[in-house]
């Protein structure tokens, strides 16, 4: 923006600036909810509910025992699946990324597995493992691991060769090389993979419960829909959305901490 001739050139009151930021952040959401509230009072569409009804349904449906019965187990499986994927994906990615022959042997195979739409693995997992909690975690891992694995391989591969050779000549131990050079060098790519894995894992959590469960968030939402409990169904969608947002926010914080050096470096080279 050109600063010349506008009020921006002068340092403004801090309070005004904060107020402006807040207004920008909440303006559109507040406006949207307001319109929605007005519109819902005159709409006759059975499948859409107003914000007040939705909030009531949300409170009645999810706050209380349902939280412990349906929400916590789902989120628990999601987190277990995610951490397993990160652990396995990064470990396998480092090994495959470091050994060129192994990488060349596995590359087409990995490309194929990544291309399989993860939800089709649910029927396969049901066949192999039955309808169990393990199966749901396995489904999450089998979908979420690929972006992490492939990004780790790429990141490990792209480790600066001069730094690697320096590390060799200084006889830095294998362990230190891994922790102090290879993993940090690959971490921006690993984080990219984890971000992609987050949304896949969330999708698989919901779908696996819609398919094969008698509890859990996905099951509940499908149940509400089949029984025409419209407001409750909407409240479930809202809750899933909130979980997605919370995951994204937590990941954003973690990413900024882990990659602080990287973002800092990028700023410096840009300036």
């Amino acid at each position, binding site marked *: 923006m050109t600063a010349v001739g506008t009020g921006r050139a002068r340092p403004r009151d801090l309070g005004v600036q904060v107020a402006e930021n807040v207004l920008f952040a909440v303006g559109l959401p507040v406006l949207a909810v307001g319109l929605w509230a007005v519109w819902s009072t005159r709409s006759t569409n059975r499948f859409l509910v107003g914000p007040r009804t939705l909030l009531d349904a949300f409170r009645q449906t999810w706050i209380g025992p349902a939280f412990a019965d349906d929400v916590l187990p789902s989120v628990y499986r999601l987190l277990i699946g995610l951490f397993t994927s990160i652990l396995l994906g990064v470990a396998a990615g480092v090994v495959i990324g470091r050994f060129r022959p192994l990488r060349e042997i596995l590359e087409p195979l990995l490309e194929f597995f990544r*291309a399989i*739409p993860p939800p*089709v693995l649910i029927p396969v997992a049901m*066949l192999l493992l039955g309808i169990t909690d393990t199966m749901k975690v396995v489904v999450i891992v089998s979908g979420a691991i690929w972006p992490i694995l492939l990004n780790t391989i790429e990141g490990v591969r792209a480790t600066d060769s001069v730094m690697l050779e320096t590390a060799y000549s200084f006889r830095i131990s294998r362990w230190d090389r891994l922790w102090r050079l290879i993993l940090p060098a690959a971490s921006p790519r690993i984080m990219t993979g984890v971000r992609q894995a987050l949304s896949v894992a969330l999708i698989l959590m919901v779908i696996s419960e819609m398919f094969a469960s008698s509890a859990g968030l996905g099951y509940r*939402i499908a149940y509400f829909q089949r029984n*025409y409990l419209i407001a409750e169904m*909407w409240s*479930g969608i809202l809750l*899933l959305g909130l979980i*997605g947002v919370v995951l994204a926010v937590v990941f954003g914080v973690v990413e900024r901490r882990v990659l602080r050096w990287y973002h800092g470096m990028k700023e410096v080279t840009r300036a």
Partner: protein
Amino acid sequence: MRKILLGAAGLLGFLVVWQLIPTLGLVDPHYLPYATDVFGRLAEEVRDLAFWRRVRLTMTSWAIGLTVATLAAVALGTVIGMVPFLRRATHTTVEFLRPVPSVALIPLAVLMFGLQMRAALVIIVYAAFWQVFVQVIYGVADVDTVARDTARSFGLTRAERLRYLVLPTALPYLMTGLRLGAAVALILAVTAEMVIGNPGLGRMIELSRSAGDAVGLYGLVVVTGMLGLLVNVVFRFVERRSLAWHQSVLADEATR
């Protein structure tokens, strides 16, 4: 050459292991059928018109969904990305709506449109839209400030600025978004068929499962994987071709 040979060896090794697991009795063949059976069934299927009709149905909803999502995302993304006020005002809303898992909308789509392709399209469009939209916004906002000021002082019209300034800057981003969106749209196309039950490959997978037809089920999983691979390869090719003039591709070619 060496790469192709090793890759083929890897694939072959995988198939051998797959064949050996039920042969050695590690897993019951009812649950993990022999690789030879699965590929034998696939060879039969590809001669069956019903199979191709299902592929066509799945790919049709994929194509429609991706097209609608891309058009909407490019139109909205360009407008919002070019106007700083809109970008600031929509930021929180976008960040809230984007992580909402598209499958959460399945029950809603079913209620509104019934067990039809239209219900599936809602899910596909929602999922693919964000992938493209976010990239377009980044792309449009990435226009070099010096280039933009230069264009202004040379008196380029709005249309000219779009054509010569914004489009070349945003194109690499758009292509990335398109590739990601295409992959996501396929995932959701198949998923919607599995859950909603509109006809296509996904429904066939669900039917094979409930009928206990493991051979058919594994065959279909392989087919969806091949489709996914095809989509990836095609979009990567398009990406390279349309960005042949771009630095990132040129630098890549130079180092070869």
